[in-house]
């Protein structure tokens, strides 16, 4: 057994072991309080222990992030024997970047949960091990280079999320959200698996590299690969992944699931699940379907399809988001729109070497801004006075300036106003689009950010420029060190990536994949 192999997968292993320990601690720890949500008084394992468990899972996940950084500094190519896990787990700079990103997003989400769950009497311990295991799945998904490990990782990631959505057991909307996501998610996973099976039938390979080589032989006399089969498989894989990144028209579940889930789960879905899906999308498209005929514009290529998805996601989601009355639902639609912007980068990856790095950097900036925005939304409400609709937030800027300032800051970053991280993410994606000659996509994307800016501005208008109606319910901010810590960390990162993006840009550039 080569020790280097263990070292190479250490980010994933560390988080997995941490998750096991957390589960043991949760199972055998002494519950503190009874959960009284409808029905008789029951005492779950790990109930009332959110503080310790949140801290524990945050430590585990941040440790995973640190290990990824350390491994990056060493350089994964320096460890011989790393390739012995390929193609099931490919440990390269691309994977390490996403390991860091996913651990960061997961860690911030668990900090948010540490404040949110006790406040809303959802204080059940299983949330944290689920979150950690789901992150393990997400990291493995980003590392996977084979349809088998891809599917296992996808399901590991998704199962945890299904449970985390339905944490509010007695609530009808939460159950609906959970079931909806579960049914549609299983369906999408099945589509992807079916695509993988067809590819195996066509090329005799399950690993992306082998599939790519098989596709490259199409057209040669000796080839046995059936081109129509490959195209059908490509469509199926794309549909399954478009579901996970919630691109229009595969987005129908998103608003309901995001709204019904507890907000930390929503945060986790918006940042980690989406990032992991983008990671594997890039890898499948650039390695598996990186053939020149498939990356061409027009004909049989995927770029026009993805470009349509991108335009639809941006435009439809932005227009609908502008009409929402619930802030959480608005943020759900905004996350769909952001998937659209990132897809522009994926399309650009067909030609430009800047494409893939731009998606990576975009996911980084999107993660910190989104965590911050959801965190601020959590901070703005307490039990019985949760911040849901715009009216709840009316006059918050006057009553609780700090919470309102934090919320505005992250919304500005999501809107892409300089000098925040969100602006740089957009700039990088759009300059990659210009680099690939996608000028129309650039203009559509930029005009969409105007629409986007409108509904982010609307929140600020309510917070600063309107007064609550007399007698109307208003949101009262909660007090939680966990939430404040997560928000502060996110704010520092948003500002750091916005004002001094140079280092992180170089890192994203070094982590990018190129096709072919």
């Amino acid at each position, binding site marked *: 057994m080569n020790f280097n192999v263990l070292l190479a997968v250490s980010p994933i292993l560390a988080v997995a072991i941490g998750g096991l320990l957390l589960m043991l601690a949760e199972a055998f720890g002494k519950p503190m309080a009874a959960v009284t949500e409808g029905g008789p008084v029951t005492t779950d394992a790990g109930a009332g222990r959110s503080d310790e468990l949140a801290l524990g899972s945050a430590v585990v996940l941040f440790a995973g992030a640190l290990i990824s950084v350390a491994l990056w500094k060493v350089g994964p190519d320096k460890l011989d024997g790393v390739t012995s896990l390929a193609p099931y787990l490919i440990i390269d700079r691309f994977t390490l970047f996403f390991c860091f990103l996913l651990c960061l997003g997961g860690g911030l989400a668990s900090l948010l949960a540490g404040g949110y769950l006790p406040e809303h009497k959802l204080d059940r311990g299983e949330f944290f091990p689920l979150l950690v295991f789901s992150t393990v799945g997400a990291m493995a998904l980003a590392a996977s280079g084979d349809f088998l490990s891809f599917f296992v990782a996808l399901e590991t990631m998704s199962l945890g999320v299904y449970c985390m959505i339905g944490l509010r057991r007695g609530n009808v909307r939460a159950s609906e959200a959970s079931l909806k996501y579960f049914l549609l998610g299983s369906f999408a996973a099945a589509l992807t698996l079916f695509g993988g099976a067809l590819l195996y039938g066509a090329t005799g390979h399950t690993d992306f590299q082998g599939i790519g080589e098989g596709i490259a032989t199409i057209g040669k006399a000796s080839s046995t690969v059936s081109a129509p089969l490959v195209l059908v498989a490509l469509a199926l894989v794309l549909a399954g992944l478009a579901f996970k990144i919630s691109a229009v028209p595969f987005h129908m579940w998103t608003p309901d699931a995001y709204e019904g889930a507890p907000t930390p789960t929503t945060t986790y879905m918006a940042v980690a699940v989406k990032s992991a899906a983008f990671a594997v999308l890039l890898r499948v498209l650039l390695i598996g379907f990186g053939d020149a005929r498939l990356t061409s514009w027009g004909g049989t290529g995927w770029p026009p399809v993805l470009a349509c998805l991108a335009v639809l996601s941006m435009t439809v989601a932005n227009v609908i988001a502008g009409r929402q009355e619930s802030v959480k639902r608005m943020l759900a639609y905004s996350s769909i729109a952001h998937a659209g912007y990132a897809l522009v980068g994926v399309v650009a990856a067909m030609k430009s070497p800047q494409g893939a790095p731009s998606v990576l950097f975009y996911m980084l900036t999107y993660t910190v801004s989104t965590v911050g925005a959801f965190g601020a939304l959590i901070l703005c409400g307490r039990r019985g006075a949760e911040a849901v609709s715009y009216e709840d937030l009316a006059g918050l800027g006057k009553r609780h300036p700090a919470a309102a300032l934090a919320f505005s800051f992250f919304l500005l970053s999501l809107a892409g106003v300089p000098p925040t991280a969100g602006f740089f993410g957009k*700039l990088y994606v759009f300059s990659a689009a210009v680099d690939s000659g996608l000028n129309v996509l650039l203009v559509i994307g930029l005009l969409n950010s105007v629409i986007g800016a409108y509904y982010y501005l609307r929140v600020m208008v309510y917070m600063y*420029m309107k007064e609550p109606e007399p007698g109307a319910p208003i949101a009262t901010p909660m007090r939680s060190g966990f939430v404040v810590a997560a928000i502060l960390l996110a704010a520092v990162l948003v500002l750091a990536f916005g004002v001094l993006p140079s280092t992180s840009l170089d890192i994203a550039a070094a982590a990018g994949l190129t096709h072919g």
Partner: protein
Amino acid sequence: MNPLAQALFQLAPYVLAFVVGALIPRRQGKPERFAIGIVAALSVLLVKSLWPSSAAVADENAHEWPYLLSVIVFLPILGAIFVLFLPRQSPVILKRVTFLILGLDGLVSLGLLSSPMTRGWHFQQITEWIPMFGIRYHVAVDGVSMWLILLSTLTTPIAAYVAFGSLKTRIKDLCFAFLLLHGAMMGAFVSLDLFLFFVFWELLLIPMIVMIGVWGGVEKVKAAYKFFIYTMVGSMLMLAAILYLVWNFTKLSGYPSFDYLALQHVVLPHTAAWLCFIGFFLAFAIKVPMFPFHTWLPDAHVQAPTGGSIILAAVLLKLGAYGYIRYCMGLLGGVAWAAAATLAGVAIGGGIVYGALVAWKQDDVKRLVAYSSVAHMGFVMLGLLAGTQAAMEGAVLQMLNHGVSTGALFLLVGVIYDRRHTRLVREFGGIAKVMPIYAALFVIVTMSSIGVPGTNGFVGEFMIVMGTFVSQTLGGQAKLQAGLASAGVILAAVYMLSVVQRVFFGPLSNPKNKHLKDINVRETIAVAPLIALVFVIGLFPNLFLSRISDGVSAVLERYTDSRKAYMDSGDAEVATLAPRQGGPLEHGYPEAPGKKTDTPAPAQAQALNGVAQ
């Protein structure tokens, strides 16, 4: 320096951060203080490690202190952040700190006058910011931008002074908005890197929206949205054009740069050049505003508090005209030249004449002044489009004039609004009997706005009309357009004098006006510098023109070169790079990154080539 002292010097920021972090918080135990101190020191480390290695360019103008512009820009921005940490409950402290910072900024900006503003860039400072994209922190001024900076550093304190007098709620937010707005405007005027310019251009949107939306009138939210959407659409199209230019430059020269000096050498094929011009022009035309993009302005002005209106009129609108000079004429001179005659027609028909006619029919005095802004900015744009030395100098001077006289008008309208809470002309009449000093000041400013000889307005408008008459850019229409523009001066007299007549003279019919108090000391202090400037510019314009002319001639030279390169490119399908000319105007040109050291840094090489799996 001995090694020990050097080590201490390097450690100083961390130690300082640690001490500040450990001592500032109240009611904390020793371990907490220690932890906070460590966190502070680590954040300094983070910031230092994120900052790219910098290389400053040696400056020919060695006597000019290169950090002056940075101080002017970042003093208010840091001040805005500082204000956030002051207690909300003590408005007096907040106001004093804001004044102190704005006043200090004004004093520092007087340092710009130490330079005679000869050809080329002054007070230039260049530092690498984001090497991967070729983005640098590049700031400098020339004769055009210098006066706009001085105008802002004069009017912003006045606007703040007025706003503090009339607004009593949420002073902290107001101080924050003023300081951030001021810093962002300064930044937009001095940036020579298009990225930096865009950052400041966007940054000033936020405080302006806050100012309109928080302290505005009844329809404030609608006005804030309108202002926001208009400007955002413009700036997004501008960003698209910038990215396209940068992409072309990268492709042609082999390295990326967002620098103005670099991008002005890109000669685009005709269609692309037109599209880029439209992108830039829309952004600036909305800001100026030019007909038909002016409709946000009256709403924004009417709803904004007096202080906000003054800043909006005096400085923010100038940013549009300044952007046209710097970017439309400098980067895309060929298209600007070709479009000039048509656009001049729009500036005259939609700005000078239509703006004046609409102003004439207004019942709300503030709305009237807002439409008069449209007309005045029409003059400015006409001067820029005419593209002769006299017209351009007149246009730059007219920007200052408009800032002074419209700022003063808004201020005076605010005075009467504070007393009566209405601005409708029919509510007044015969005010001169109860407010004689106020009436006198108002008439003086009106004269300046109309352009009576001896006041500032005359010099600017005269130079513009004169320059337009001989303009070659406008072709055969120049004489007609000069004639029409002079007719606009008459219209200005019609609408301004009619409102003065209706408000100040005639019988004192409305009983509510019988006991109005005359203008008080505070308001007089605020308006006095503007009134003084009316006469200083009007009687001694050469004080100003002498520093403007070299800047303007450089702009015109650039404009002609750009046009020539555009015409020479003919029907070329691809963009080309015009040769460099050297000289003071290209001082600070971004050289290729590999030029100094033969091997590029590994990170950059990876960025350019991408990394194979």
